Each structure stands twice: as C-alpha cells, then as structure tokens.
C-alpha cells in the first residue's frame, strides 16, 4: 500500500487474513487507535449481535413460534382452554409439558439421547443426523458451485436421481472386488449426475436456453425415466413388477463407520472430502476463479479471454457431478436399492441448505447438519408426542428464515446493529 500512514486508509496490518478470495467485507480488526477497553466492550457486544449469537436467537425465535403452534394444536392443551379462567394453571402446565415434551423429544432424537442406557443409544441420534446430512451436504455443494458461477441449478433433484440410478445399477449388476466396486459405483453416480446436468449446461452455452427451465424439466424427465426403468427386467433383474431394484452388492456398500448399530457410513467422509474439494476448487483453483468470474461478470470475463460457454458447461458438469455423488451415496450408503422415490426431496432441500450455508463449503456443512437435525429431530418428535410432521416443516422453515435474517432477529430482540465492519456478509 502506498501511504500506510494516511488516516483514510487502513494500515497494512488491518487487512483481513489470507482470504484473498473471500467475498464479503471481513475486517476483523478495529480501526487504528482502538483502546483495549473499547475493544473489550465491543467484543462483548459482538458476541451478542454477531453471527453466532444471532443464530442462537434465531433458533429460539423459531422454537417460540413453533411452541405456540404446538400449544394451540395439542388437544391436551386446548381442552384446558375451555376452563382457562377458572383454572389457568392447567393451561400453563399443559402447555409447558406439551412444548417441552416436543422439544426434548426433538433434541433427544437428533443430538444426544440423555436417557440412553448405552453408548449406542446415547449417540445414536447424533449419528442419524450425520447420516441424513450426508447426501444433503453433497448435493448442496453442487447447488452452491453453480450458484457462485451465476447459474441456478434447480435440477439437483434430477441429477440425484441419475446419480443414484447409475451408481445403483453398477452396484447391483456388476461384480467387482472390494473397494473397487464401491469406487466404480461412486464414479458412475458422479458421471450420471454430471451428464444429466451437462445437458442443461450445453443447452445454455450453445443456445442460451435458461438453465432454470431446462433443469426443472429435466427433473421430471429423470423421474419418469427412472419410473420406466423400474418396470423393466433389465433394471429390476426380476419378473416381479415391484418397482424396486435389487440391493447393491456387498462390495458396493459404503462401509459403516461405527458398526452395525449405526447407519453412519463412509458417505459422511465423502461429504467432508467433497466440502474440502469444493472449497479448494472455488477458492484455490483456476477453475473456481473462472467459475466465479463468469458468475459475476460474463462480459468482463469474456474480455479477459475466459470462454464463457465452456465455463457454463463445466460449471453444470461439476454441479451435477456433486448432485450425482449425493445420489450415489444415498444408494450405496443407506438405501441400498433404487426405487422411484430414491431422491426424496433431496434436490430441493439442497437448494435451501446451499443458500443457508451462503454457498460456502463450511457454511453448507453446518447448514446441512442443522437441516438434518431438524429433520431427524422432527421425526422423533412426531413419534414421541404425535406432533404432526407437517408442523415440523413449519418450524423447520421458520428456523431457516430467521437464521438467514439476522437483522430481523436483532430487530425483534431490540439488539443494536453490529459494527459496520464486523457485520457478516449475510446472503
């Protein structure tokens, strides 16, 4: 820097760490001349108004609203309303127990079961959350890659289906040695997703066809294509007309990480690797540079000699490859056989997770775990208290919305805005 002593410019030392490629403004250090005291009090305030504090408050807020919904829909509570004025205590104790039962069940179902009687039962919920998060994280990474390159891949769903189909088919048809089989099946899944997404990439690059349209349409095509495959002997290997494939061979299974008691499998490691890979790809590789440049300003990229069209195709292929990998992990890790609903709502949940994680690998990793925890916890809440799963969807969406809107949470809790230079770049 030319004039470090000038008051108008931050001193060299105040430059943010080594994150050359970081998007948002991220100046952790205060302005020069900060006194230690000011720093300390600021740190305190930041803790409350900072990202973490706000995330916690967002959670609290969503749970409070969820609690209201639970209270007013639980029969044991609403029945006390009829005599609320003669004995309000009943209402409050019923409400309290309904809400606390629900949320305790949710926590026990998704994080740690403190009532468990063995290591297995105590930690089982957490591993379930990790298991469910696995494909979600991977698919969300795919969505995020496209998103940062200015493409909106709404077709993760279809790509997951193709990935699962390819991986599954290799898994239950071929017979290969240990390790090799699972690797080949995974590669097959990656290819399946990449090919499917590339259709949208190529059409976008060659004809300008908008990727949102094409990927939405391809979702349906993939769905029906799989439905068709499931009626053929070629695919189901049986004359029964159950639309279900055989299970993948033993060598094609992703190995379990914690033994038979847990469903947690090596897919979780794959998810971690994928996150690291995407981080590296987007911030440390020339490909990522190119992806991001085209995403931000295709004109300037083209002037700088970057092939915009080829980049579109590459981006979609990488994005689809990750979605395909998610499909592969789903089949080889937990589901074992291919059915029409193999993709569930993975593709759409992945969009939420990707954006909730601000399209960054670390963010996605935690967003995926959070989303999965809500999912897993919600199901155990339904099982334990009868709170319908649909209500869980409502709570889930509220949590996501509030977490994504720190200023709203601050406004509700009447917290001061964070220092301008300390604000996290919210999506």
């Amino acid at each position, binding site marked *: *820097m*030319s004039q470090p002593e*000038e*008051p*108008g*410019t*931050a001193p*060299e030392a*105040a*430059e*943010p760490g*080594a*994150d*050359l*490629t*970081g*998007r948002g*403004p991220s*100046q952790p250090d*205060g*302005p*020069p001349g900060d006194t230690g005291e000011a720093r300390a009090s600021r740190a305190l305030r930041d803790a409350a108004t900072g990202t973490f504090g706000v995330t916690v408050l967002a959670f609290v807020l969503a749970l409070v609203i969820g609690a209201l919904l639970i209270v007013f829909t639980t029969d044991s509570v609403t029945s006390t309303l009829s005599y609320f004025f003669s004995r309000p205590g009943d209402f409050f104790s019923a409400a309290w127990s309904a809400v606390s039962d629900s949320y305790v069940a949710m926590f026990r179902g998704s994080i740690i079961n403190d009532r468990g009687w063995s290591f297995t039962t105590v930690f089982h919920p957490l591993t379930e959350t990790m298991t469910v998060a696995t494909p979600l994280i991977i698919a969300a990474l795919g969505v995020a890659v496209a998103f940062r390159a200015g493409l909106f891949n709404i077709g993760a769903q279809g790509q997951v289906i193709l990935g699962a189909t390819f991986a599954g088919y290799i898994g239950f048809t071929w017979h290969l040695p240990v390790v090799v089989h699972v690797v080949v099946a995974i590669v097959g899944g990656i290819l399946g997703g990449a090919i499917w997404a590339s259709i949208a990439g190529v059409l976008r690059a060659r004809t300008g066809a908008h990727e949102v349209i094409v990927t939405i349409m391809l979702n349906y095509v993939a769905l029906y294509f799989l439905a068709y495959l499931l009626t053929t002997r070629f695919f189901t290997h049986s004359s029964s007309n159950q639309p279900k494939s055989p299970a993948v061979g033993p060598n094609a299974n992703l190995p379990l990480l914690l033994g038979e008691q847990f469903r947690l499998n090596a897919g979780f490691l794959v998810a971690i690797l994928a996150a690291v890979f995407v981080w590296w790809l987007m*911030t*440390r*590789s*020339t*490909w*990522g*540079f*190119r992806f*991001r*440049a085209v995403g*931000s*300003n295709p*004109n*300037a*990229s*083209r*002037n*700088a*000699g*970057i*092939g915009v069209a080829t980049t579109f195709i590459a981006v979609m292929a990488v994005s689809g490859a990750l979605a395909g990998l998610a499909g592969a992990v789903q089949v080889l890790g937990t589901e074992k056989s291919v059915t029409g609903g193999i993709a569930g709502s993975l593709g759409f949940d992945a969009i939420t997770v990707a954006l909730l994680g601000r399209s960054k690998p670390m963010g996605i990793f935690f967003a995926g775990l959070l989303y999965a925890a809500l999912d897993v916890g919600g199901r155990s809440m339904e099982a334990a208290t009868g709170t319908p799963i649909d209500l869980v969807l409502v709570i889930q969406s509220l949590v996501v919305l509030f977490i994504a809107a720190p200023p709203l949470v601050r406004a509700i809790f009447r917290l001061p805005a964070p220092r*301008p*230079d300390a604000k996290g770049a919210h999506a």
Partner: protein
Amino acid sequence: MKLELRGITKRFGPLVANDHIDLVVEPGQVHALLGENGAGKSTLMNVLFGLYQADEGEILVDDAAVAFKGPGDALAAGIGMVHQHFMLVPVFTVAENVMLGHEPTRGGGLLDLDAARRTVRELSDRFGFGLDPDAVVEDLPVGVQQRVEIVKALVRDARVLILDEPTAVLTPQETDELIAIMRELKAQGTSIVFITHKLREVKAVADVITVIRRGAVVGEASPDAAETELAAMMVGRSVSLGVDKEPAQPGEVTFRVEHLTVRDPNGIAVVDDVSFAVARGEILAVAGVQGNGQTELSEAVVGLVPATGSITLEGRELVGLSPHEILDAGVGFVPEDRTVDGLVLDFTVAENLVLDVYDRRPFARGIALDLGAIRDNARARIEEYDIRTQGPSQEVGRLSGGNQQKVVMARELSRPLKVFVASQPTRGVDVGSIEFLHKRIVAERDAGTPVVIVSTELDEVAALADRIAVMYRGAVVGIVPADTPRAVLGLMMAGVSAEEAHAQATETELDQLADEHTHETGAQQ
C-alpha cells in the same frame, strides 16, 4: 438556492472517505471540486444527493437544515445530479431513461412517449448531442451515454446541479457546449457543483474551486491559478502536464489491420474496410467522435465481435480466433467501459489484477492458484500505479472511478505484450495519474510494443500519438502525423479527407470551421 455542507463525515468501515468536509455553494455559482482519484468527491456528492447517509454533519438548503432520506428528497429540494457511474437503465431507450421519475402521461397513467421523445430531441438539439430518443441505452457507446445522463439531469430544471465528471468522455467540442450551458444556467441562478479532472474546464467555468485530498478539504483556489498550481494542490506534489516523450523510433511493422469490416445485424458496416499498420515502438491514436466505429474496431481486434478482413500480429492471423487465443497471442486490451467490460466488480483488486493471467505462471501451477503470487502482484501494482485501495482484498466495486480505471490499466500493462490496444485509457483518471499512465504507455512503446490508443480526448491524442488515424462512419478518413493541427483533425472527424482538410484549414478560419464541422458530426452520427 444556497447549499451548505457542514462537517460532513462519511466512513466506509475503517476508511474515512469524507472527513468533516465543509462546503458552501452560493446561488448562481459554479463551484468546482478538485481532487485526485479516491479523494472522496463522489462520496461527498452522493451524500449531498441523499444516496449515502452521512455519519456526521449536516446539509443546509437556504440556511435550513435538511435531512435527505433518499434521492427523492434531494430531487424534491431542487437538486439534480449527473452521476460518475451512469444511472441509466441499460435496456430502456434514451427517452424512457430521460423521462423516468417524472413521466409525462396521457391520463390513466398511460405514458406519453411522444412527449418524452420531443423533450429529448429538443434538449439534444440544443446541446448538439444528436441523441436518438429511441436508441436503447446499452447499445450506445459510453460517450453517448454520458450525453444522455447530462440531458437527464438538465431536463429537470434543478436549482442545484451536481455534475460528477460529466466531461470524462465528451469531445472537446461537446465539452465546450456543456460549459456554455453551465454558464447559461448559472446566469439563471442555478448553482452548480462541478467535478472534473480536466483543469482547462475548471479554469474556464468555475467561480470557486475547492480542493479535496484524502477525504478532507485542503483549501480553496482561484480559477485564475495556473494549471500546474492546481494540479500540485490536488496531488500534493508538482505534476508535469505534458508528456515528454522521445520521438518514436518505429521498428518493424508487426501489427497490421487489413480490410477489416464489422457488420451490425442489419448488415450495415460499422467498421468499413479499415486498414492500417502499426510498427513496433510506435503509438497510433485513433481519433473520432464517439460512435464512428472505434469501439467496434477495438473489440474486433480482441475477437469480441465477428469481423471479416485480416488482423495480423507478427504474421499471425487473429480474425477468427477466440478472445482467449488472441489475448494469449500477446494482445493487451483496455475496454472503454471498465465497469461492464473491464472489471469483475465484486472480485477483489488482487483478483482483477490477474483476471486474464490467473491461469498461468506465476499465478497458477497446474490448476492450483498461487494466492501468494497473486497477492504479491497486487501489492506491486497497487504501489506502482498508486491505486488507492484499502488493500489487495478490497472489492474493486468499492474503489473510486479513477482507481478502477487504474486497475484495468495496471493489469493490461503489466503482462508481456506484443500489441497494446486501449480505449479511453485514462477515463476519469486524475491529472497526476494521467501523467503516470501516459508515461507507462510511452514506456511500453519504447520497449518495442506497437500501441493503439482509441480516445475522444484530443489532448490525450495529441500527447500520446506518433501518428493519428481519424475515423468517420466506420472508415478511416486518413492517417496523419502527430503534429497535425487540431483544426485539421476536427475537419477530418467530420469526414473531410486529410488533403482537403489541410487545404481548407487556412490559418484564419481555422477555429471557426473546425467548430462547426465537428458539431455537425456530433449531431449526425
């Protein structure tokens, strides 16, 4: 209307862009703001216009404090503004842009487009801008967009008019027109705040000059002060305003354009059978009124628009190659519109500085980026080009206009080149930096690179050129020596051939003639 700014302070994070600035604009006064790139001029004006909220200080209109929540309030208070970064809706027509916000309607909220067209024509005729009300703004060269922006501000009859570098891409004649208008407005009692880097203009029109440096007012100057004095005040050191360069030592001719033709979708030749050659160690300046094909010519060189004919660099044919291959072949390119074509605004300074070399050594090994090398490069360029930024990792979009331009120039001039093609290379750059950039361009020439400069700025053309090619309606009217009188150039820019122009341009009628012809050109294209 009297306007007063008191103690205005605006911070961007740790950066204090405006530091307790006081400014008084008297009614009917042209108040010039001078300051180097990044001094905080635009920021101050944006605060005044309600686009930014000041952290401290107050704004007084006719001695009463006002609070502008947004530009709407400022407009209502009678303030108008021409923005440095155009505030034009790219997909709208000129007429739509001009009427936006105070649209004439025909009852029922239906737009009266005809009325808007008439308004545009009237104003455009008055200033000799030659605007087509139905042209779509994004299709227009920046110079024409600049005129739209001016018309848009004038059409509202503001009582205080802020002009943030309105002349950056105007021809000298257009600038003179604008100055005439400013005088006229001033006579009617309009106050004007005028930001420019061109000292000639300041001296011509300003009543008061305030100089800002690094966010703070450093003093006032009189319009009578010498240009060098003003320049020194702005930059804080003495600046030499001319370019002292050795005469060219043209070497071997390595860059040839032959029968180059670019057609628009309707088949009209916007670059029409253009041929020229540039030798190593020589600067060819392409002069001409905006919209006569210079933009397309430069874009054709880098393969951005399809062209026929031939462009050879050291014997290698460039027509038909992709931009990637052309840049690889050693072409350095500075597009005329930096924010649209030159920079990725939400990339960092460091990233923008390697935008076209990120994938090769030393910035990449295989497909892995070397962030250290990228950062070191950024540090070096920032230092060398005096780019005012909070650091290599600041987003380029947050730099001041002139500093963004320096980023593009720094990037293109710091890789090994076999030819350098630049459109409006010093658009919006302050005098101190122009001096530096011009020196850099001359150094590139002296290192043996053929250089092509496209500029509407005759001062710049005169300062840099070894030879001048004048374009008119897509064709090269003639290629003349650098010392050709301005009057002759002016005639040529109106389509008169070089010989004829020389013949016509006798000493006595020179100025007058040049004026008229160039205006016609402006009106026609």
